C-alpha cells in the first residue's frame, strides 16, 4: 500500500514540478516580449522569418492536399446523409470550429515541434548554446524568441489556409469529380458561419501555437547532455503537444459554445 501511495505521490510531484517549470519558462519567454532591446533586432527578424518560412510556407505542400482530402471527404459523406439540408452548418461546425485548428496543429507538431526540439536539443548537447552565451547573447532571446513568434504566427496562417482550402477546394473537388448536388453549399456556409466561429478558430490557432512552441522550446532547452536523450525527448514533445492541444480545444469549445 505504501509502495503504491509513494509511487502516486512521486508521479504527482513530478507532474506538478513539470507544470511549474513550464510556467517559469513561459514567464521567461513573455519577459522577452515586453522587454525589447535595441540590439539584435535585425537578427531576430531574420530568424523569425526563417521560422515562418519553414513552418508555414514549406508546410503548404502538406496542408493543402490534407485540407482538400478532408474537405471533399466531409462534403461527400455529409451530402449523402443530410441531403444538403444543413450541410453548410455541418461544414462550419466541423471544419472551422474543430477539424481545422486541430489538424493544423497536428501537422505543425509533426513537422515543426519535433524539428525544433531536436535542433535545440542537439545545440545543447554539442555546446552550441554555450557558444552563443560566450558571445554574450542570451540563447533564449536569439533562438527561443524567433521560434516562439514564428511558429505561433505560422499556425494562425496555416489555419486560415486549411479552412479556405477545405471548404472551397473540397466544394470544387466534389463539383468537378462527382455528381453529388452541392450547388448551394457555399451559400449555406456563408449563412451558417458567425463571427464567433471565426473568433474561436483564431483563438484556438493562437493557443495551439503558444502551447506547441512553449513545450518544444522547453524540452529542447532542458535537454540533458546525452545525445541518446534526444529521441525520447522528441517523442515526449510530440505527445505532450498533441495532448495539450486537445485539452485546449475542449476547453475553448466549452467556453464559447456551452
Amino acid at each position, binding site marked *: 500500500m505504501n509502495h503504491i501511495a509513494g509511487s502516486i505521490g512521486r508521479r504527482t510531484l513530478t507532474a506538478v514540478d513539470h507544470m511549474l517549470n513550464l510556467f517559469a519558462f513561459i514567464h521567461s519567454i513573455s519577459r522577452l516580449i515586453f522587454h525589447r532591446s535595441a540590439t*539584435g533586432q535585425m*537578427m531576430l527578424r531574420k530568424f523569425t522569418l526563417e521560422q515562418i518560412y519553414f513552418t508555414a510556407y514549406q508546410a503548404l505542400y502538406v496542408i493543402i492536399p490534407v485540407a482538400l482530402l478532408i474537405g471533399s471527404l466531409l462534403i461527400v459523406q455529409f451530402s449523402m446523409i443530410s441531403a444538403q439540408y444543413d450541410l453548410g452548418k455541418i461544414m462550419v461546425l466541423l471544419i472551422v470550429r474543430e477539424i481545422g485548428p486541430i489538424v493544423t496543429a497536428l501537422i505543425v507538431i509533426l513537422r515543426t515541434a519535433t524539428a525544433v526540439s531536436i535542433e535545440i536539443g542537439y545545440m545543447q548537447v554539442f555546446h552550441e548554446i554555450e557558444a552563443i*552565451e*560566450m558571445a554574450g547573447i*542570451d540563447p533564449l532571446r536569439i533562438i527561443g524568441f524567433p521560434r516562439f513568434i514564428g511558429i505561433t504566427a505560422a499556425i494562425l496562417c496555416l489555419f486560415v489556409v486549411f479552412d479556405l482550402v477545405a471548404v472551397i477546394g473540397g466544394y470544387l473537388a466534389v463539383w468537378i469529380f462527382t455528381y453529388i448536388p452541392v450547388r448551394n453549399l457555399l451559400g449555406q456556409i456563408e449563412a451558417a458561419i458567425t463571427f464567433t466561429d471565426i473568433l474561436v478558430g483564431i483563438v484556438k490557432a493562437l493557443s495551439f501555437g503558444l502551447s506547441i512552441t512553449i513545450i518544444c522550446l522547453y524540452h529542447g532547452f532542458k535537454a540533458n547532455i546525452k545525445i541518446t536523450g534526444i529521441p525520447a525527448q522528441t517523442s515526449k514533445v510530440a505527445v505532450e503537444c498533441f495532448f495539450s492541444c486537445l485539452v485546449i480545444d475542449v476547453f475553448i469549445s466549452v467556453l464559447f459554445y456551452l
Partner: protein
Amino acid sequence: MATIELIDYTLEPQSAGNGIADFSFSLFGGDGYCIQTDSLDDAVLFLKALATLVSPRKGTYWFNGVQIDLSDYRNALPCKQRIGYIASDAALISNRSVRENLLFMRSFFENSLRLTLDDHTAELCRRFEILDKLERHPGELHPRDIKNAITIRELSKHPEVLVLERPEDFIDHTKFGFFKKTVAAMIQQNLSVVFYSSDMNFIESFSTKKIMITKGRLTFS
C-alpha cells in the same frame, strides 16, 4: 583591480574528477597562469568556472570589480563576451555558415546583417587557411577547420581573458607558431591567459605563475 576574482569558491565535480574546494583566485591584466593537476577533469572544471560556464556550490565571482550573480545565467553574459574560450567543448553554431559564425556577435550587437569581416579577422582567416571555406557550414568542414574557425572567432572578439585547454591539441600544429605569436602580441596589450597544456615550450612562453590542483585543492606558486 583584478579582471576576474573568484572568492571562497567551491566547485562540485561534474561527471568526473574531485571538484575544487574552498579557494580564492585573482587574475590581473597580463597574467599568464598555467595549470598543473593530477586530474584533467579538475583543470577543465576550473577553466569552465573562469568562463562562468559552471556555477559554484558556494563563492562569489567578480569581473572587473563587479560582483556577478550567477544564479541567473543572463547576468554572466557581459563577462562571457569578454572571455575567449578555446577548449575541447567549444563549438560553432552548426546551422550557420562559418562567416555567419565569425560575424555572429558583431551582427547582434551592431544590429546589422550586412557586416563584413574586419581586417584583423580576415587576416586570421587567411593565416588559418579558411578564407575559401567561409560560406560552408560546420558540418561540411574538416574538424581541423572547425577548430581553426573557433580559434579565429575567440581571438577576434578581442577578449580580456583567454582560457585555453590543451592549445597544442586544439590548434593545427602548422598554425601553432602563428597562434603563439598572436597570443603573445595580445598579452602585450594586457590580455590575461589561463591555460592547461602539456607543451613545455608553450608553458615556458606564456606562464608567469602556476596553479596547482591536487586532490581537489588549489594552490599557487
